[in-house]
C-alpha cells in the first residue's frame, strides 16, 4: 500500500482534483443529496477521531495501573469496565482485553485480517499497523518486527502475539520504567508511548538521576 499524496500527477483536464479526490467529492455530494449522510456529522466525526480520541487516553489507563495495584487487577480481569472507570470507551473498544508485559512475557498486538485496533484508548491506527508488512510478519517473525522498531527483547522473554480476529481489542500494559519512583500519574502517563501499548515499543526510560533534581 503506497502513501497517498494530496496532489497526483494525472489530474483530469479542467480540474484541480486528483481522480481519487474527484471520486470522494462525487460520492459525498451524492450521498448528501440522497439524504443518507449529513456533512456536518462527518465534520464532527473527523474532529472526534483526529483531535479528541488518541493514545493519551491509553496512557492515562497505563499510568493509573502503575500507581494503583487494585486498579491494575481490575484492568487485567475486566478491562472494558476498568477503562470505563476513567471515562474512556466507545466504538472499537467495546470489548477490551489488557495484557501485561512482565520480565517473562512480552505482548504484541496485530490484526492480520484487517486493521482492528482499540480506538478509544489509542485512536485510529497508524499506516504501518494497517499495511501488509506488519500484518504479515508480526505473527511469524515478531522478534524481527520488533528489531525494526529498535526494540530488543531478551531471548529468555517469551513473546505472545495477539491477533485481533474478532471484536475483542487488545492493549498492552507495559512494565513501569525504572527510576520513576515518586512520579505523579501525569508524569508517568507522559512516558507511555502509543507503540508501548501496541507492543512495538517500550515506555520512555528515565536516567538513574532525575534530571531536574536541585543540588
Amino acid at each position, binding site marked *: *500500500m*503506497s502513501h*497517498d*499524496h*494530496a496532489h497526483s500527477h494525472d489530474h483530469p483536464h479542467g480540474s484541480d482534483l486528483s481522480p*481519487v*479526490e474527484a471520486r*470522494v467529492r*462525487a*460520492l*459525498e455530494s*451524492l*450521498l448528501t*443529496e*440522497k439524504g*443518507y*449522510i*449529513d456533512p*456536518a*456529522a*462527518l*465534520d464532527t466525526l*473527523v474532529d*472526534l477521531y*483526529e483531535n*479528541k480520541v*488518541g493514545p493519551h487516553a491509553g496512557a492515562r489507563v497505563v499510568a493509573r495501573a502503575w500507581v494503583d495495584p487494585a486498579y491494575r487487577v481490575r484492568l487485567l480481569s475486566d478491562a472494558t469496565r476498568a477503562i470505563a472507570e476513567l471515562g474512556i*470507551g*466507545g*466504538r472499537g473498544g*467495546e*470489548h477490551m*482485553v489488557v495484557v501485561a508485559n512482565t520480565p517473562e512475557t512480552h505482548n504484541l498486538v496485530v490484526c*492480520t*485480517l*484487517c*486493521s482492528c485496533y482499540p480506538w478509544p484508548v489509542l485512536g*485510529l491506527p*497508524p*499506516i*504501518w499497523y494497517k*499495511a*501488509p*508488512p506488519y*500484518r*504479515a510478519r508480526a*505473527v*511469524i517473525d*515478531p522478534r524481527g518486527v520488533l528489531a*525494526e*522498531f529498535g526494540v530488543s527483547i531478551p531471548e529468555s522473554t*517469551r*513473546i*505472545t*502475539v*495477539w*491477533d485481533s480476529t*474478532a*471484536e475483542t481489542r487488545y492493549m498492552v500494559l507495559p512494565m513501569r520504567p525504572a527510576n520513576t519512583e515518586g512520579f505523579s500519574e501525569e508524569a508517568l502517563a507522559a512516558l507511555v508511548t502509543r*507503540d508501548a501499548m501496541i507492543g512495538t515499543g517500550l515506555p520512555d526510560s528515565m536516567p538513574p538521576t532525575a534530571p531536574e533534581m536541585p543540588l
Partner: protein
Amino acid sequence: MNGAQDLGGAHGFGPVVPEPNEPVFHAEWERRVFAMAMAMGYTGAWNLDGSRATRESLPPAQYLGSSYYEIWLAALEKQVAATGLATPDELAAGHALEPSKPVMRVLAHDGLEARFRAGFPSSREPAAAARFAVGDPVIARNVHPTGHTRLPRYVRGRRGRVERVDGTFVFPDTNAYGAGENPTWLYTVSFTAQELWGPSGDPGGTVTVAAFEPYLEPA
C-alpha cells in the same frame, strides 16, 4: 475467503516502515472517506462485517495495490451500489438521478460524540451452552469458506488451547451477508509458534486468535 486480506505469515512485503510523527489523516479526502464509511454504516444499510467482507472481496491485485482509504472508498462505492442506495450512473455523475431509498437512521451531529463514546457492542445473550472450556485442547478446522470468515488461514488445521471463554458475540460469517447475528461463543485460543510455523517459529513464542465456536473442533 482466502483473499488478499488474510496476510498472516506472508513473505515478501518488506520491512515495517513507521512514519515519524504520523498525522491521523494524510489528505482531506481520507477524512471524508473515513467519516462517510462510519456514517453510512450507521444508516443500517449494512454492518461492520459486511464492510469487511466487501473490502476483502476486492480483487487481490487491487487490494494490495491500494492505500488503506482507497480500499475503504472502493468498498463503500460497491456497497452503495449493491444495496441499491445509489446506482452506478449516479455514482459516476455525483448527483441523484433517482429517488432515495429509505434508511433506518441518519447520523446527526447532535449526540454523535456521546454515541461513539458509548460504542456499539457486539456481545449478545447466549443461545446455548459453551462447547469448550478453558484448558481444552482444540484444533482450528481446516475449512476454506468462499465467503467472509474471521478464521485466518495460518491457524487452520493447527492444534491450540482454549485460554479464555470470551462470551457470545455476533457471528461475522453470517452477519456479513445480513443472514442473522447468530450469537456464537467466542474463545481466545493460543497456538505455539512452532505449531504454526514449524522449526522457524520463535522458540517459546505464542500466537493467540479470537476464534468462534464453529471454527474449532476438539483435539
